[in-house]
Structure formats: C-alpha cells, structure tokens
C-alpha cells in the first residue's frame, strides 16, 4: 500500500472514466456510482489515517520523475504530514456528503455535474499532497476549472457574473504565484537545488528583499483564495450563485487552499518576510473578522450571510497562523477543519430550505421550528458550532487561535478579534431567530416537510464530527502537533531577528515591575520567543 | 529534351492552376485542379519518385478530387456571377504577387545545400523506389505512421457525425 496516496487522489478520476460509460439519462445510476466512488475514496483515505505515524516527517512519499525540460525538473513528488493529513481526510469526508446533497438539487446535466465533482476532488486532494511546487500549481489550477463550471452552469440567476468573477480573481492570484514560483526556482538553481521539490527550498537562504517580493506574490495568491479582506468580494457572489454542493465544497475545502498555502508554502519558504508582514496580515485578518461580521449582520440572503461568516472564520485562521506559535497554528489548522464541517453544514442547511421554498431571503421565512423540528435542532447545533460554543468544534479552534495569538506579538489584535465572538453570536442568532422562531405566518411555509432520511443521513456525520472535535480534539491535535512544532521551529530559527530565545528560557524580569494601574500588556517585560521581533513592529 | 519536357509540363501546370481560380463553375475548377495534380505526378516521376507519383494520382487526383466533385454535384450549387468583389480580387492578387516575390527572392538569395543523404538516383533505380520508401516508413517512421491511423479514424468518425442528418 505504498502508493495509497496516489490511489486516493486518482480514484475520483477512475470514477470519471466509469461515469463516461453510463448513459446520461440514468440519473440515479450516475448519482449512486459517484457516491460509491467518493465513499470508496473516503475509505481508502482512512487507511492513510491508520497508517499515519505521529511524527513530524512527511510520509507516504512517492517521488517519480515527471517532466524534465532543460533546467526545469518537475517530479511527481507527493507526501503528507500532520498538517495536510487532516485536510485530505476532510476533503474525502466532505465529498460523499456533497454528492449526497445533490440527489434532488441537481436534475439537469447530472452526468457533467458528477464529473465536475469528481475532478474537483482529485484537484483538491492533489493540491494537498503535492510536495513539488510545480505539481502543486498544476493541481491548484485543476481545481479552478470544475468549480468554474459548477458555478457557471448549475448556478443561480447571476451565475455567469459570479463564475467569471471567481475565475478572474483566482487567476490573477495564481498567475502571480506562477511568476514567483519560476523566479524562486531560478534563485534555487543558483543555490544548487535540482528540482521543484518543496523540501529543498526550505533550506534555501534568501535575502530579505527577495523574500519580501516572493512572499508578497504568494501571499496575494493565497489571500485571494482565503479570502482575506479586501479581496473577499468574489466569495459572497460565488457562494450565492453556486449550487449547494458547490458551496459546500467551496467553503469546506477550497478556501482551505489559501490558508494551507500560507502554512505549507508562504510562511516556511519566506519566514523572515512572513515575520515582517505578520502585523499587516494580522491587521487585515482582524479587519476581516469584524468587517465580515458586521456585513453578515445586515444580509438579507441566508447564503450570503453564511458566506460572510466564512470570511470572518477564515480571518481567525489567518490570525492564528500568523501567531507563529504552536497553539496559534494548531488552532488555525483545527479551525480550518471546523470551518469545513460547520460551514459546510450551514450551506447544506440553506440548501435544504432552498430546495423546498426556492428562496433564500430571510424575510420569506419565520417560525419554521414548528413545522420542521428536526431541521430546527440540526440548524441550532450547527449555528452554535459556528458561533464557537464550548463543547462544539468551533470553540477549540477559535480558543487556541486566540490564546496563541495573545501569547505572540499580536496581543492587541487578539483583543479586537475576540470581540468578533460577540458579533458572530449576534448575526448567527439573529438569522436563526428570524428563520426559525416567531409565528409561522407565511402560508407557503405552513406545508413544509421536515427533513427526510437522506437529508438526515447527510447531516448526521457532520453533527457527530461537530461534537467529537469539540469534546475530544486530542486525536486531531496529536497527529498534527509534531508537524506544527517543526513548522513553528522552522519559522523561528530561520528568522533574521537573531535575538530569539528558546521557548524554555524563563524570564528573569520580576513581575512587580509592571507599573500599577497601567495595563502592562503593551510592553512585554521580557523577550520571549514569540514576541521577539523588531521593536517597531510591536505596537 | 528533359528541359523542354519540364517547361511544357510547367506551363500546363501553371495554366491549369490559374484556371482553378478563375473558372466560374466549380466543376471546371475541379477538373483543372485534377490536371494540375497530374502535372505534379509527372514531376514526381521526373524526380525519380514513381511511388510518390502513383500515390499522387491515386489519392489526390483519384480519391480527394472525386470526393470534391461529388460534393459539388451533390450540393448542386447555382453559379451566380454577380457580386464582383474587385477590391478583394485586387488585394488578393497583390498579396499573392508579393508571396511569389518573397519566395523567388528567397530562392535567389539562398544557396542549395550539398547532397548529404545516402540515396542517389542510381540507387533508387536499382533497388526500387517503393521498397526504399517502405523500408524507411516502417522503420524510422513507424510510430508516426501508426498515429496517422488514429487521425484517419477520428476523421472518419468526425465526418460521419457532421454529415448525419440531425445535428
């Protein structure tokens, strides 16, 4: 089973081949086959999980020659560590759910839709497992195309606009990344690397100016994908127009590409530049959190609201990642998974009522609790998961992010970001109240059917994950921990700010020196590892 | 003798080529084109390539032209001599003329390379052109040859689909 990773990645492609032989009119067969393929992929991916050794090294490595054109040597070089492991599992976990959600939602061009879904899965998995920069880029672009079609063909009223916006936004970023990639490669060639293999670049010493430019290019590409304020405006449109499964995948996995890109590429490749820009990116992240929450509050369309809540959640992830310590990055990684589960679930929920009523305007609903008790319960659980109630998954990630960021130089950012938890409660509960509570006064809502077995079956795994990850996140954290420790050390050690102390060093400054009555938070009394940055960066 | 023959063939070829583009009736154009193809076949013979000549006659003058003539007859296009696009003809002629000038000047400026290959006229005549071509084709160029078959398959499928009644 040494190539189980490749198997997982390309099983969906085999599924596409299978689908090609099924006539397009037999929709049921098409759906079931797709579901079976995604389920098998999920099962296969579980063997990765069981075979995963908890250490910081890359595992399941496959390294084969692929393209060698002059100085350009690209290899089929894949492998996972604790960071990508869970994202792979998340992807394979979400896909069957997404497929199952399309059983009644998509009636036209079912075959093409299913093919798009499967291609998308391969693209996403490939991007997560690539250890070759160029291979990563290829998969990165592969994801884009099926998503574009999913929005553009099966979308809502304004689908073309949304699809093109999505495409162009992402394309601008990825082209910039490509340029940076090639530039980086030439820099690497001078330093003696032999191919696009990611691991070789980690030991590359780049001067600050180069790092800054390359980091900016990478960061821009990933920031669009995250999406970070102010590059987020494609997301609400894309989400609103995309079909349910598209939204689910977009939110659950595609957005993680951006944050994953930071964790895997932008930060470890250019640690000094990352340190330099951390306050800036944290500022954008915090603005994103507050901004998206405020905007979400006044949305009239449920789906748009959820889309904006995504922006806020991803802002938290960015804040955690740029804390550069183990807690922050672990929190960020967990929050990626959490966001995948709970926002995915939210989109499914919006999809359920959209299928029934063909509207997503909040004002069209009200009092659904009475008619749809099961739905109400599930919606409520997911809402609270999204708010980050302790005991659900959302809390663990958010908490680790905040505590990690608070420990680092980003203390004041954290304080502002924490106020985002208030706002998230406001907008989520407000929409919940307007949709579910109150009088059931709209006659169209009075005949709504509660969730059927299939819909419940879709939601149950997500609900289970919400509680499991909230109450016992240890298996998740444990497996990613070594890799994150390694990453944190990598970022720290290569930093040009040489006055870094190891984390174990206790501070000698006596506590009582902090002036009384003054919030002694702004001036750290001792340079501990995480806040050892240029003085002018500390606010 | 050979030069004279070459000149005559050239004359016929060029005149029939001009007829191809000047005839109003496509059928006439097609027949002129067949004439040109025959002339080219003659050239091939003169160039010690009898196999090429045979193929030229069979494929071009035979198969392709038959196809074209059939199509013309099938569609039964009326010849309408109206609508003279004089500026188009003028522009086209100028461009064609410059194409000719370009190539001729290129010819004059350049110098013929020295023969480098192993095949001399005597050799071809002794062993036989077909055999040499065949040997080359099925050894060095085997893969392209096989791939060509796929191209033909695609073309067959494509033309059937296109010509089907309900597109």
């Amino acid at each position: 089973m040494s190539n189980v990773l490749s198997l997982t990645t390309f099983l969906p492609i085999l599924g596409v081949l299978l689908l090609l032989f099924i006539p397009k009119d037999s929709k049921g067969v098409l759906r079931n086959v797709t579901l079976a393929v995604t389920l098998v992929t999920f099962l296969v991916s579980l063997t990765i999980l069981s075979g995963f050794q908890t250490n910081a090294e890359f595992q399941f490595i496959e390294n084969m020659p692929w393209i060698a054109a002059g100085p350009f040597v690209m290899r089929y070089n894949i492998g996972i560590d604790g960071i990508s492991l869970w994202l792979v599992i998340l992807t394979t976990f979400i896909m069957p759910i997404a497929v199952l959600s399309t059983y009644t939602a998509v009636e036209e061009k079912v075959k093409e839709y299913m093919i798009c879904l499967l291609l998308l899965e391969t693209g996403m998995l490939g991007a997560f497992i690539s250890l070759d920069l160029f291979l990563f880029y290829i998969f990165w672009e592969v994801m884009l195309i099926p998503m574009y079609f999913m929005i553009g063909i099966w979308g809502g009223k304004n689908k073309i606009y949304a699809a093109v916006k999505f495409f162009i936004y992402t394309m601008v970023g990825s082209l910039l990344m490509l340029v940076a990639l090639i530039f980086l490669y030439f820099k690497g060639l001078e330093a003696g690397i032999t191919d696009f293999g990611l691991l070789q670049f980690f030991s590359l010493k780049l001067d600050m100016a180069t790092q800054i430019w390359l980091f900016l290019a990478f960061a821009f590409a990933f920031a669009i994908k995250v999406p970070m304020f102010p590059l987020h405006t494609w997301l609400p449109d894309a989400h609103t127009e995309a079909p349910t499964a598209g939204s689910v995948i977009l939110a659950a996995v595609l957005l993680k590409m951006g944050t994953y890109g930071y964790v895997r590429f932008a930060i470890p490749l250019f640690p000094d530049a990352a340190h330099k820009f951390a306050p800036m990116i944290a500022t954008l992240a915090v603005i994103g959190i507050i901004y998206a929450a405020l905007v979400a509050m006044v949305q009239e369309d449920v789906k748009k609201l959820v889309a904006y809540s995504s922006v806020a959640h991803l802002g938290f992830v960015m804040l955690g990642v740029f804390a550069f310590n183990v807690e922050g990055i672990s929190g960020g990684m967990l929050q990626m998974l959490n966001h995948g589960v709970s926002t995915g679930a939210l989109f499914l929920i919006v999809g359920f009522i959209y299928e029934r009523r063909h509207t997503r305007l909040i004002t069209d609903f009200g009092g659904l609790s009475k008619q749809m008790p099961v739905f109400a319960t599930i919606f409520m659980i997911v809402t609270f998961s999204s708010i980050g109630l302790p005991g659900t998954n959302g809390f663990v990630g958010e908490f680790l992010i905040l505590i990690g960021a608070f420990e680092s130089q980003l203390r004041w950012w954290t304080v502002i970001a924490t106020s985002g938890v208030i706002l998230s409660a406001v907008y989520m509960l407000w929409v919940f109240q307007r949709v579910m509570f109150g009088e059931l006064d709209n006659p169209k809502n009075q005949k709504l059917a509660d969730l059927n077995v299939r819909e419940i079956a879709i939601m149950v795994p997500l609900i289970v994950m919400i509680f499991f990850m909230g109450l016992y996140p240890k298996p998740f954290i444990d497996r990613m921990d070594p890799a994150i420790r390694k990453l944190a050390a990598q970022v720290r050690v290569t930093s040009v700010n040489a006055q870094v102390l190891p984390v174990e060093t206790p501070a000698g400054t006596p506590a009582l020196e902090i002036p009384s009555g003054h919030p002694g938070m702004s001036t750290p009394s001792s340079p501990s590892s995480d806040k050892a940055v240029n003085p002018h960066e500390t606010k | 003798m050979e030069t004279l023959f070459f000149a005559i063939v050239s004359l016929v070829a060029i005149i029939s080529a001009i007829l191809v583009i000047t005839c109003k009736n496509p059928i006439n154009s097609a027949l002129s084109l067949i004439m040109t193809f025959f002339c080219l076949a003659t050239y091939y013979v003169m160039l010690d390539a009898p196999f090429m000549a045979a193929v030229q006659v069979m494929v071009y003058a035979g198969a392709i032209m038959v196809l074209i003539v059939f199509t013309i007859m099938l569609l039964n296009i009326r010849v309408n001599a109206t609508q003279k696009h004089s500026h188009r003809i003028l522009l086209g002629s100028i461009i064609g003329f410059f194409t000719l000038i370009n190539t001729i000047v290129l010819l004059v400026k350049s110098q013929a390379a020295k023969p480098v290959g192993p095949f001399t006229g005597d050799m071809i005549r002794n062993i036989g052109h077909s055999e040499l071509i065949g040997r080359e084709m099925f050894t060095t160029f085997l893969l392209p040859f096989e791939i060509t078959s796929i191209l033909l398959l695609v073309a067959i499928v494509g033309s059937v689909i296109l010509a089907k009644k309900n597109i």
Partner: protein
Amino acid sequence: MFDNVWLIPLFPLIGFLINGFFGKKIKNEAVIGGIGTLMIFMSFIVSCGILLQMIGLPPEQRVFEKVLFPWIHSGNFKADMAFLVDPLSAVMIMVVTGVGSLIHLYSIGYMHGEEGFYRFFAYLNLFCMSMLLLVLGNNMLVMFIGWEGVGLCSYLLIGYYFHKKSAGDAAKKAFVMNRVGDFGFLIGLFTLYWWFGSNHNIWTINFTEIKAASHLLPYGGVVTVATLCFFVGATGKSAQIPLFTWLPDAMEGPTPVSALIHAATMVTAGVYMIGRMSFVFIKSPETMMVIAVVGAATAIFAATIGTAQNDIKRVLAYSTVSQLGFMFLAMGVGAFTAGIFHLMTHAFFKACLFLGSGSVIHSMHHALHKIHSHDDAQDMRNMGGLRSAMPITFITFLVSTIAISGIPGFSGFFSKDEILWQAFANPYHGGLNIVLWGVGALAACFTAFYMFRLVFMTFFGECRINAKAKSYLHESPLVITIPLMVLGFLAAVGGYIGLPKLIGDMFGGIPNYFEHWLEPVFALANQYSAQYAHHGAHPSHAFEWSLMGLSVVIALIGIGIAFTMYVQNKDLPGKFTATFPALHRAVYNKWYIDELYDFIFVNPCKAFGQFLWKGFDVIVVDGVVNGVANVVMGFSGIFRYIQSGYIYNYAFSMALGVVAILGYYIFK
C-alpha cells in the same frame, strides 16, 4: 465518593440524552418528568455523599481533583476535562442539585400539557449538567464550557415559546449580552495565562496551579486588567450594570426556568467565579473597588425599577438583579464568605418566590382561560386576595418575602446583614465604606418595599379579576406545593448555618459553620488582602448591634410604606404617580436603558454594517474590481469590430502578416 464526582454531571446528561432523543416518542409526561427529576436527584444524592465525606475530613484535606480525559493539549497550552471538589464547589453542587431537583419536580406540574414537554425537561437537564460543569471545573476552560453551556440553555429555555417574537428577542438578547461578558472572560483568561507564562514560564489555567503561583502576582497592574476583564464576564452572566438588561426580558421563559436559571443558579455564576478566583481578585484593590461600586449601584438601581413594575415576574427579576448586586458588593469588599452565603440563601428564597409566582400565574392562567379572558395572567393589577384561594402558596411566599426583606430570624437577614456590616467595616475602601453601606441599606429598604408591595397586591385586598373567574382560582397540586414548602422551609431556617459571630456568641458560642466551612477556600485571599488593608479602628460590638438594628428598622420602614400605600391607602400610588409623572415614567420604563443601548450600540452597529456592505463592499471593493473589468470591456468593445466574422478578412490579415514578416526577413 470523591472519585465518583464525574457522576454528578453525568446523570443530567443522561437525562438530557434520553429526553432529547426519545422524549417525543415517550409522550407520557410522568415518565419524561420522572426521568428528568430522577436524574438530577441522583446527582443530588452523589453530591450529598461528597459533602458528607468532606465533612469527615480535616479542613486542609478537603480538596480533590479528578482528571477525566485530556481535552486540549497544544504547545504550552494544556486543559484537561477535570473536576475540582472543594468546600466552595461542594456548596454550589448542593445548591444546584438540591434546588434543581425541587424545580424539576415542580415543573412536572407546572408544565403539564405544554407542547414540547420533553423538550423542556431535556433542556433543563442539559442546563443542570452545564451548571455542574461550571462549578466543578478545575480549570478556567472547563468552567468556560459550563459558562457558555448555561448561556446556551438559558437561550433555549427563554426561547422556549419560540413562536412568540418577544421570547425569541429575549433569548437572543440574553445570549448576546452573555457573549459580551464571555469576551471579557476570555481576555481575562488570556491575560492571566500569558502573564504567568511569559514571566514565570508557568503555562496554566488550572485553578489549583494558579492558586499555588498566585504569590507571584503583583498587586494591581496586570492583575487589575485581568480581573476587570473577568469581572466584565461576571457582569454579563450575573446581570450587573451595565449588562443587566437581559435578565428582566428573560422572564419570557417558563417560570421554573426563571426560578432555576435566572434566580437560583446561573446568574450566580459570576459571584461563584469571583469566589473561585478570590486569590487573584484580591490582589487588585482597584478591581475590588469597581466590583463593590458596581454591585452597590446595581442593587439600588434595579431596586428602584422593581418598585414600579406590574408584571409579577418582572418585579422578581429586578429583585434578583438587585440581590445579585448585594452579592457583588460582598465580593467587592472582600467578604467572600458572606457573598457565597447570600448566594445560597438567595437561591432558597428567590427560587421559592419564583415558584410561588409560578403557582399564582398557573392558577390565574387557568381561571382566565376558563372564562376565555385574554387578560394578562402575570399582571399584578389583575390579582389580589389570592390569600384565601391559595393558602400554601401564600404562606411560603410570605416566608420568603420576609426572608428577602431582612427580617431577623429568617435566612435573608443573616446573609444580607452580614454583607451590609462588611460593607461598612471592611478595611479596603476607606471613605467609600459609608457610601457603600448607605446605598446597600437604601436598596434593602426598597427591597422590602417592592416585595411587600408585590405580596399586598397579589395576596391581599380584593380580587380584581372577574368574579366568575374567581371561582376557578384554586391551590396548585401537590407536585407544585411540595417544592414550595421545602424551599419556604429552607428560606426560613437556611440562615442558621451562618449565624454572625455576634449573635452566635450571644447564644453560647454557636460557631459560624458556613464561614468555617469555606475558610480553607478563602484563607489565601484573606492573607493577601492584609497587604493593603487599612488597619483602622475596629468598630465595637455595640456599634455592630446598632447597625444591625438600623438595617432592621430600614426594612420595616420599607414594609410600612408598602402597607400604607397598598393596603391602607390605596389611592396613594395613583397620587404619587400623578405628582411625579416623569419620575414614574422613567422608573416604569427601566430608566430607558434598553432604548439607550439600542441607540448607542445596536442601531449604529446595524447602520455601520449596512454601510460596510452597500458602501464599502459593493461600491469600493467591487467598484474597483468591476471598474477594471469595465475598462477592459471598453477597449475590447472597440477592438471587437475587427472581428467581422468573414473568413476572407481573417485570411487577408493572416496572409498579409505572413507576407510582411517574411518580407522583412528576406529583404533585411
């Protein structure tokens, strides 16, 4: 027994799961209610076992920690799912499970025939579980689960009648305001964690470890910041100024919920939290002063509002806010024991009052329903003279009212008087002491006034509802009255475990059991406080006696005014209102605090959100994006005319290009 502490939250959880998943199928109310009540009662039994075992141990051994499973371990950060049993949490679990069991029992009767009966019991069990987690957590994060969990249950139960818009609004308001508090709690937690970690390399949020390291904390400074943040958390949960407005609205929930959550247990979480971290709070004189001031201010502020409300539950709600103010006052003056003591007695008498009011409402509702009247069953102006119809309710209600008013001999007297005395005599706040005492005493006067106003309006005088409906008024069934009687009894005698030393000495040296019990918990805090306490003159016993007498007199004055206004001279209130219309309107409308918050926070937030969306997102960001797109489209709009669609045009340009380029190279 200590090892089985995990059973305490487990039982309610089981109850929640059974009722939550299968309640709808069970249908039988007795079974559902029985399961719910039984589960919490089992917890009560386990709690009793723990308490008994603890009593048997010497005071210094009364601490026990139990780690269930590791929860979040990442980097330096470590939080286990673990419980801490000490005298303080023992008191709390006894209160929660004890009062909880009674209220569960009561609910079987009160909620009879309600749609979603099973849902109610599931939520109630879930609440008990969360509350028990809150009081049992051995680190701040487990406490925080409970902290948010009770907030969630409060949300669910306030919004129990979800088809009513007001209920939904109230639920949301409660949750959001609690969230504001949680924000403070989190920041406080971060600050403390960060400070210990970065300065002393102690990365912990565990209470025991913080306690052990608390000597490292400075006085003031960072501790002030952290504790103020924690206090913000406490104000949210415990409905103090400025975050108190949710509690009166929370009365939209069923009455047992008001009794359990919004009187006896959840709202006291803030007090408990300060008690739990007394050794941190005491290190910041500034925070202590803020707590005392806020507590006193809330006590008087809410009490004034309580005097003008007509809804029976709202009066009680403001009373709760006011009494919580007393508890915070106690905490703020370093009288932790008194605060917790008042917490306990308050749980008894306020639960009894709420349940009593529930009994009244139940009966009124029933009567009004019979005559198809749509009058408000909770409006005191519709009540009156219920004394005869509902004797048990009346007696228990009266006992509790006397207790809350601070009449000697009843539980409220002991705890409230202790607080007032400590407010006066505490060695921390210097000249502020008199003010604190004065405000507290005035609030006590108001308390006596509005509580007896309530009693007089409800149980005395003429019945103001339709005579026909009157005949339907009747005493509630046993399942409702038994909890009332038990709680009434506790409200009467519960104070005797914490007799003030003064009175205890008089009766031959009966010790203050309660104080001794909690001593190991607060010993450290008292030790730290010695650092900055003013060692002024200790008031004499005679002075203490006179203050005690004064507070009794004040209470009696309040009762007297109520008696004059609502029994003897019934047109007085009307005259009073006519004389000071503006004042009455302001008090009746709760000093317009809600409107103020709407004006300052809610509306600007919404408007700002609208602006950001329509103004920034759509116009600026998308404007730039679409602007770029439009420029490109504009150019292409010009260039596209080159695409005539005619083949010869393309062929011409292509051939021309080829010829030109070739020509360039050939003639070059």
